């Protein structure tokens, strides 16, 4: 006897309504049998399949409600229904749970978004799992360097077969490219054709196989190509390039322009739509370097194993090679080139080590020096995640403690369920279902909150450099849902185990009298408030520190002073032109702006060289600088007007007087010293101490040497009169355009520049402040829940007390007493704790603000106030209630 296609028969048996299954299956088989005899097996099979598929219709398919099935579907449906009913019935508690969880989840989701954004970097490379960057460790245990010596790549390529491709990205391409009188600024690297074999940067013009293989060829980013050539095809066009020493990371490394000659455009990379840790406007062929070395336009470090900050080494390993085998190779190179090298100029480099970093581990990755672009190191994410986790745990604890507190209202239900045959497992499932429903509601609210926190986060100062995109995609949403499920399970597990534990008799007999000691909930609540207070005090301290820095007395007058980068223009010409503008009162020049992050170092040698050289800060200034910034000359004279003395006379500050070993400033005047290159220097003046380095760099004002050296000037300091600054700036810009039509006029108010150095601290204030706000919010929500519950439980007691003549305030006090105790305990623990934590980090901070018990007291009072409002909202309501209302039922 023939049998029909089994898979379809099985399918039919699976979907068919059990009531119809047997007779219809019989009909089908009877028909099949007949058809096999009449038409043959193949046609019968086909007809059978058609019949089965046509049977797949509404009336025949088994109903989906589980009445006939053996799954737990029906039970879960019931849990779901009861869960929803419970949420709707106790709106107050549901609100507290959902809102508290949502607030915490939104923070966690923000972190997930950040990590997802970072993880999406460098994922477009085809062989991303084979790509590595070499990291150098000059000193063991200190922060490693992303840059390595240049000859490393050649050695790796030639001597180590595990390396399939290798390229070196030499830094030092940064300046102006000109084509047909149009000039754009380019920053980038020298590299070779292997770059395109290793990375998958998409070329929109040009040939991957040959690009950058000939000398003096250049590949541009699509943005820069558009700026230079508009829509014309840029391939084969010649641009002249003048190097100004710009790099991707710093913004004021200007130096006089050096022409590197003509470059031919051989490709255009569409880098804008790509997320990579590498950013550049242009890459030029490294085969152009030998000629540039010869002309002494760029220093030759291609054979120098000790110059480890020249650029980045990227490798593509053979598929079978591992990170460990690369590390072994690098270790053997380090051994032969450093540890056992015969001759080293700098003995300190003998310990130099290297290791491979997978391209997947760069964003987010370990903290390294000389990074290619601005990025947050891993540790920052760990800290942010930790903060978010603390908040999340607090919210979960809220859910847990509220669920347990309310367990008594659920005892009857649990008892009845148990008596009618529910096992403990069923009850656990039920309570987990409820917690997951709550968390899913919280997820919806959290998504809304996330929308706002995301906006606020993107507005933070550091995002200007980090370019977080924080776009949500399907995988991210799936992670969110998975995260919510995990939160639901974690928050719900303890209540589920706790509630399902009671034997049914106990569950049914208990008559709604709170018997538990509530020890657990008290501990949870106290810990929440302790965490909140620590956060509150910390954010207040950081904010005070921020205010302290912004109001800091630098020792010079930065008001109404604007700094204009020279952008390699002649400073005297600019001074002459700008002086004629009416709003300009004074102009001076310097090589870097003091107290904004850049410092230069110089060494002063004693004439007889009997002492070790003194390391000092150096600032190159013109004659006007001292009077322009209102620096006070306390001894000697200012720089003289004769050009002969330029660069030979120096003015020092008070710290330098002390360091060089003079009793009084007057003693130092006229003394002779030598520069590192043995040029002799004479001290002609002493200025009062002022801040030349960042506030965060040290408590003391470091010794400083002021030199009048016009060659080094990079900035003009223009003091403008108070009225109409915008008008003055407009006329400055006009003048600028007549002198330098190529570069944009740039300027910055000195005041703003100083303020900007503290913006990073303000970002920390915003983040910690927000976290502490959430912490106290969640803690208060938790307390609100407890207060609501206890006052509800005690309405009868309150009624009786009132009838017997208790005053409202007495009742409020009785009801609040236990909570007040909790708050006091929290403050007792948290106040000293937060004092020690904050003194600890503050001790390591230069120029710190005074931190007394005042801040702790204010923080404690703030928290106490919020706690009292929370409790009071419930207790006052309970105390006001008419006793008739609370006593009349029963």
């Amino acid at each position, binding site marked *: 006897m023939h049998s029909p296609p089994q898979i379809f028969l099985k399918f039919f048996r699976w979907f068919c*309504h059990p009531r*119809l299954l*047997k*007779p*219809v*299956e*019989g*009909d*089908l*088989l*009877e*028909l099949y*049998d007949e058809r096999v005899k009449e038409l043959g097996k193949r046609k019968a099979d086909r007809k059978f399949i*058609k*019949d089965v*598929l*046509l*049977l*797949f*219709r*509404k*009336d*025949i398919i088994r109903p989906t409600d589980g009445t006939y099935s053996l799954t737990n579907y029906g039970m879960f449906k019931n849990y779901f229904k009861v869960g929803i009913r419970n949420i709707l019935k106790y709106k107050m508690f549901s609100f507290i749970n959902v809102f508290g969880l949502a607030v915490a989840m939104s923070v966690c989701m923000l972190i997930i978004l950040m990590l997802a954004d970072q993880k999406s970097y460098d994922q477009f490379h085809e062989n991303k799992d084979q790509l590595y960057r070499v990291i150098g460790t000059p000193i063991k245990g200190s922060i490693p360097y992303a840059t390595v010596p240049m000859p490393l790549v050649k050695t790796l390529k030639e001597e180590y077969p595990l390396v399939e491709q290798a390229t070196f990205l030499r830094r030092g391409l940064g300046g102006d490219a000109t084509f047909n009188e149009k000039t754009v600024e380019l920053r980038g690297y020298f590299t070779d054709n292997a770059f395109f074999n290793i990375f998958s940067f998409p070329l929109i013009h040009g040939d991957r196989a040959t690009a950058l293989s000939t000398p003096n060829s250049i590949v541009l980013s699509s943005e820069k190509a558009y700026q230079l050539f508009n829509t014309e095809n840029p391939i084969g066009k010649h641009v002249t390039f003048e190097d100004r020493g710009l790099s991707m990371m710093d913004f004021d490394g200007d130096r006089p322009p050096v022409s590197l000659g003509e470059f031919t455009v051989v490709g255009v990379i569409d880098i804008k739509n790509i997320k990579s840790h590498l950013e550049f406007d242009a890459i030029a062929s490294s085969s152009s370097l030998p000629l540039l070395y010869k002309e002494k336009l760029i220093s030759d470090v291609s054979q120098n194993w000790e110059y480890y900050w020249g650029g980045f080494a990227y490798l593509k390993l053979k598929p079978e090679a591992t990170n460990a085998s690369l590390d072994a190779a690098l270790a053997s190179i380090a051994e032969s080139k450093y540890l056992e090298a015969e001759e080293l100029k700098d003995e300190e480099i003998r310990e130099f080590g290297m290791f491979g970093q997978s391209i997947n581990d760069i964003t987010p990755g370990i903290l390294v020096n000389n990074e290619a672009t601005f990025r947050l190191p891993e540790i920052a994410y760990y800290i942010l995640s930790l903060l978010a986790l603390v908040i999340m745990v607090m919210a979960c604890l809220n859910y847990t403690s509220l669920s347990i507190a309310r367990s008594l209202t659920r005892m009857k239900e649990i008892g009845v369920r148990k008596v009618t045959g529910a096992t403990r497992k069923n009850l656990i499932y039920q309570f987990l279902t409820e917690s997951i429903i709550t968390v899913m509601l919280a997820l919806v609210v959290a998504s809304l909150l996330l929308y706002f926190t995301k906006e606020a986060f993107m507005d933070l100062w550091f995002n200007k450099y980090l370019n977080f995109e924080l776009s949500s995609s399907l995988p991210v949403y799936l992670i969110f849902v998975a995260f919510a499920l995990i939160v639901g399970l974690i928050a719900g597990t303890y209540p589920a185990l706790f509630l399902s534990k009671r034997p049914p008799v106990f569950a049914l007999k208990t008559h709604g009298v709170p018997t538990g000691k509530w020890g657990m909930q008290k501990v949870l609540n106290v810990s929440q408030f302790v965490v909140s207070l620590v956060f509150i005090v910390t954010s207040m301290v950081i904010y005070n520190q921020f205010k302290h820095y912004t109001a800091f007395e630098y020792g010079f007058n930065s008001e109404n002073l604007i700094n204009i980068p020279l952008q390699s223009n002649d400073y005297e010409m600019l001074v002459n032109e700008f002086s004629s503008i009416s709003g300009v009162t004074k102009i001076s020049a310097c090589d870097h702006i003091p107290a904004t992050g850049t410092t230069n170092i110089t060494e002063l040698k004693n004439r007889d060289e009997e002492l070790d050289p003194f390391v000092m800060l150096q600032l190159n200034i013109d004659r006007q600088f001292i009077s322009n910034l209102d620096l006070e000359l306390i001894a000697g004279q200012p720089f003289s007007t004769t050009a002969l003395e330029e660069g030979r006379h120096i003015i020092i500050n008070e710290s330098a007087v002390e360091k060089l070993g003079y009793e009084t400033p007057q003693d130092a005047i006229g003394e002779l010293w030598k520069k590192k290159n043995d040029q002799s220097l004479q001290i002609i003046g002493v200025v009062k101490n002022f801040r030349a380095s960042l506030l965060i760099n040290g408590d003391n004002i470091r010794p400083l040497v002021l030199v009048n050296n016009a060659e080094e000037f990079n900035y003009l300091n223009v003091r403008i009169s108070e009225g109409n600054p915008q008008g003055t700036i407009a006329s400055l810009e006009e003048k600028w355009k007549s002198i330098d039509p190529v570069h944009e006029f740039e300027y910055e108010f000195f005041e703003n520049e100083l303020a900007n150095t503290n913006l990073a601290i303000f970002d920390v204030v915003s983040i910690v402040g927000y976290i502490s706000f959430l912490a106290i919010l969640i803690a208060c929500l938790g307390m609100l829940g407890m207060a609501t519950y206890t006052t509800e439980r005690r309405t009868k007691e309150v009624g009786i007390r009132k009838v017997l003549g208790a005053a409202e305030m007495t009742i409020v006090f009785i009801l609040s007493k236990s909570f007040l105790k909790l708050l006091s305990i929290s403050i007792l623990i948290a106040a000293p704790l937060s004092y020690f934590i904050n003194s600890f980090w503050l001790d390591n901070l230069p120029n710190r603000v005074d931190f007394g018990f005042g801040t702790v007291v204010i923080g404690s009072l703030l928290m106490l106030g919020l706690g009292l409002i929370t409790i009071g909202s419930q207790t006052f309501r309970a105390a006001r209630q008419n006793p008739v209302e609370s006593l009349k039922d029963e």
Partner: protein
Amino acid sequence: MKKFQLGEFEEIVMLTVAILYDNAYGVSIKKEIESRLGRSVSVGALQSALKRLEDKDYLASVDKDATQERAGRPKRYFKITSLGKQAMQHTKETRNSLWDAIPSISLDVKFAKVYDA
């Protein structure tokens, strides 16, 4: 008179069940309809109609005759209930009354053609 709801196919099935009287089960009903009306009927369409009629209490069923060639599966024999009989009668009467109400002239095809022109 919304009491009796009977679709076109449902009516055919009811009539066929009545015709077959003692031998009305899935396969036989299908074959009877196919041979009398000259149209093919899928098992799915038939079974869903039968189920609907049974749900409406127009048909009653009994399972028996689990034979060898049906791999031990019973046949489900259908019978018309008194409610089903009423429904059929009602449908028939409605039709008849509609037929009776047609004026003889409206079915004169020649006339219709004049309109056409």
